[in-house]
């Protein structure tokens, strides 16, 4: 299995532990990747609010690069995945629009024909790699631990761009992967809600209320950690959880937020440090002890 790998700006920036743990886990799984080092930011919906065509053009530019490589794209960010899926839908249903965009890419010698498939690592695990194959790499049983899923808006909405009608298992993919490790899924209302990051710098009060509500609810339901396939959610849920708790709750929340590959890495026997869990803002030491304890082995 080989993919053109687009880590996204945040895995290359504010959440280096996501990049680090992804590389370890992919290597263990025998999934080969070639990084798209010349791809741009997807726009994350922000660029699109200013100029949708510019956002689509930059994403089509990335699709064209992967098409030249003859590889499907793997993403590790819900926001990248969703934004790219929206761009793909826009160009495949409108040949004129695609031709228009291709004209802007001609200077760089790029042309997109519409054939690049872009999938989040989470979807690849469920749809292509297979959970039974995945489980063969697990050496540590995580049963006894409870993980709350947190998808990130762009991996859930808009459903028409994300192919849920064609591939319904995508809607429950995160729960399925959590269960494959032996851990219990915490069923909670916030799993498909907004983390609040897009308004962190605009209306911080509301953003922090969202963080406090989702992490606090999961914690109150007994979660040992939250697991997310979206590094942007991680930035807010981990980075601002302490501040959110202070402003909105009488007690601390202290819920570790794991990137999806970190959870897989724990089940594969990597140490928390190898997975970059020491780089989190919310302490992961209690979770690390739980994982290392004899009951967890």
């Amino acid at each position, binding site marked *: 299995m080989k993919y053109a790998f687009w880590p996204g700006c945040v895995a290359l*920036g*504010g959440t280096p532990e996501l990049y680090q743990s992804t590389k370890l886990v992919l290597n263990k799984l025998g999934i080969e990747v070639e990084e798209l080092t010349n*791809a741009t930011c997807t726009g994350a919906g*922000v660029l699109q609010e200013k100029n949708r065509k510019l956002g689509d053009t930059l994403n089509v530019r990335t699709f064209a690069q992967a098409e030249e490589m003859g590889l499907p794209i793997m993403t590790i960010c819900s926001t990248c995945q969703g934004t790219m899926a929206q761009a793909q839908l826009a160009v495949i249903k409108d040949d004129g629009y695609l031709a228009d965009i291709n004209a802007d890419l001609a200077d760089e010698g790029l042309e997109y024909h519409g054939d690049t498939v872009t999938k989040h690592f989470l979807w690849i695990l469920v749809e292509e790699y297979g959970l039974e194959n995945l489980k063969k790499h697990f050496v540590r049983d995580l049963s006894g631990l409870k993980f709350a899923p947190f998808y990130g808006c762009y991996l859930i909405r808009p459903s028409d761009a994300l192919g849920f009608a064609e591939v319904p298992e995508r809607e429950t993919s995160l729960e399925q992967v959590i269960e494959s490790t032996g851990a219990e899924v915490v069923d909670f209302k916030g799993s498909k809600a907004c983390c609040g990051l897009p308004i962190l710098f605009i209306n911080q009060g509301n953003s922090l209320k969202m963080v406090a509500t989702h992490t606090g609810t999961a914690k109150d339901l007994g979660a040992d950690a939250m697991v997310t396939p979206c590094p942007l959610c991680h930035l807010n849920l981990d980075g601002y959880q302490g501040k959110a708790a202070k402003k909105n709750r009488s007690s601390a929340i202290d819920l570790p937020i794991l990137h999806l590959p970190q959870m897989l890495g724990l089940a594969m026997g990597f140490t928390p440090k190898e997975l970059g869990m020491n780089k989190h803002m919310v302490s992961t030491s209690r979770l690390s002890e739980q994982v290392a304890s004899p009951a967890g082995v």
Partner: protein
Amino acid sequence: MPETETTVKTVTANLKVYRYDPEVGDAKPYYQDYEVEVEDWFTVLDALIKIREEIDGTLSLRCACRASICGSCAMKVNGEAKLVCKTKLDSVWSPGETVTVDPPGNMPVITDLVADFKPFWDKVRQVKPYMQPTGPVPTAEYLAPNEDMVHLAGVMNCIMCGACVSDCTVLEVDKSFIGPAALAKAYRFVADPRDGKKKERLGELNGDAGIWDCTRCMQCVEVCPKDVDPMERIMVMRDQAIEEGYTGTSGARHTESFVNSVRRSGRLNETRLAIESMGVMNIPGQISMAPVGIKALLKGKLPSPLDHKIPSKAAVKKIVEKSEETSK
């Protein structure tokens, strides 16, 4: 001619329905389970009406046209807002399962599935949902070319059912947010070529609890039964507000910083995005962000404030500039 035999499949459906009636002394809401015989063509509304007519006459719900025109019957089905007259029961329920029905969210409940829409209408009124033309009054109608009106067809489909408001993730934490329905309605007039108050309207929407408070979570787009796309309208109004000169908000600075970063380097500069969104001269704002920034620095994960340039940054810059030129 042979007789055709039609068979109607009847099965038992299990519904878990939100109940609350303070007038009969309910101290708090509770769920009531119903078993009702349904046929395969039933909508969720058909099942609810059958419960009310044949099993429990005390169940309150709103509905009128039963044909997704009047907008009376939006409520939550399995946690997500739906127009229940438009929702086939078998699209949300399979035999053996239970379907849960709640009143619409983000509104006070009057009784059972009936919510108080007063806050909803107050916010719609707040955006002055009527034409405010300027200039001399024409002798007949105000005329507008077709091509200037066609793009408004989608937003004019709004039936004010409140599904988007019910599920808005911002309203869940902040009741003051004007919300997707009122903003979609505002767009309907902002974008109407016959209206003369575009700048004033955008000025008001640019304030607190307005266009910049939307998180872009797309829940309103997902649940709208009429494809009004409230969030897309909000995004257009953000850009128009900036174009009209309303550039002094964190939101406007956030967008500007984001676009500039991609123009310079092809990638997002997260550290500059934080600083520039707050406003470089906004000292209290910068101080409020400092503790998390310092902690990230100590953890070795504060992204460099220098740009993360891609090899073909010059080509990308050209694409961005060309696109900005043609969109003007």
